[in-house]
């Protein structure tokens, strides 16, 4: 699951021509550290939902990588 989420995050970054991330840790902030804006977050939810069948923003905003894994549990 971790690798898949990492890959999805990089797909979203690549689609915007942004710098990819080498490794993923739970404390990384989606906007500040990874560099996502609202459009990227919207895309991230769609791609994660397609893969895991969970809308990670359904129950409210999340801001870190760790919270993604919380929602996917």
């Amino acid at each position: 699951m971790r690798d898949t989420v990492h890959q999805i995050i990089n797909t979203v970054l690549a689609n915007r021509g942004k710098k990819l991330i080498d490794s993923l840790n739970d404390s990384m902030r989606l906007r500040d550290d990874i560099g996502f804006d609202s459009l990227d977050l919207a895309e991230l939810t769609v791609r994660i939902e397609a893969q895991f069948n969970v809308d990670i923003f359904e129950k409210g905003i999340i801001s870190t990588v760790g919270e993604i894994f919380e929602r996917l549990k």
Partner: protein
Amino acid sequence: MNLFYHDHQTNTHASWDDLIYELNQTSISSNICKDSNTYNVFKCLILSLIVDMPITLLDSDFTENEVSELLGRTNNEKHEFLLNKPLIKNKKELLSIINQNDHKEWELTLFTSGTTGIPKKVKHPFSTITRNVKISDKHNDDIWGFAYNPTHMAGVQVFLQALANGNSIINLFNSTPLQIFKLIEDFQITHLSATPSFLNQLTTSEKKHPSVKSITSGGERFNPALMQNLSNIFVNARFKNIYALTEAGSLFTANGDLFVIDETDKVKIVNSILYIHQSLLGNFDFTDEWYETGDIVEVVSNNPLTIKFISREKEIINVGGYKVNPHEVEHAIKSIKGVTEVVVYAKSNSVLGNIVVADVVQDGSLTESDIRLQLTSYLQEFKIPRVIRFVENIELSRTGKTKRIQK
């Protein structure tokens, strides 16, 4: 030609004499018609006109639940009745009944095919539904390629135009492009009326089709590039663009994308949205003087009043407060080399309300990020589809329009 109707899918081939024989043999009919065979829908319509009784048309693919919802909600009951009608001798006599009677009791009930919400019931008297039917000797030999759902407004109007002039009807709806080209050749079809999405399939023809003299497009936004492509294939065709509403029938026609409005007192434009006066409408649950069409128009000139349709208001995708016109995005994606077809639509999203999604048919040379990166030169970032799906073909809806639905 003595042919009334040909349908290769149902293997139906009926001459006018066959039709008249069957009409004479029919002694019971119903006030509600729901039939997957277009020929039977046409017979229902003709019988209702002969006996001057109201008729309700339902899409044949409505589920039982949808039917009970639609009819129950409107207190409409199906009943069968014995037909009290004269024996019809020939085509001439049938056409005189259709064209000369005033059809005072006849009324057509249709349900609008809106993509959201419950379909709305609309009733039309004979006068509004035949507003643009032209009867004359020059139409005697017209051969129609039928390309609409027969239970929808556009289909009924094409049928009545063909019926009133005693023409032949060749059913093309739900056929593949190759089948359509063969039917055009075999029957020397002269008239086509279809949505731009339907006509778009025909641009793949490798041959010219000189028999087609007239092409009418409607139901979706007019596309000048499509007309240009079609004119290379249908070399003898005149092109006409039609603006119609299920609520009103055909309203305006144009040669290109500019509609000159004659009855200026019957339209008004407020905040770029077109409103139609109630005197042009059929009967439905509506009591205001002006009906909001939901169509966004641009006034090109005030004298004479000339308008251009920009988009459907409800088609506008709201992405976190930013408005996206799907036509604009489709146009940008189509301009990318390797893309053959595209449809853009909204997908609901927990972050932004909606996001823009595109289904793309391509030649295999493109990746999703190729398209996304190229679009950054054409479109503002919020208009660029967040998800691009590569598909084999773009599915047409049951109205013949490209599906643009909330998924």
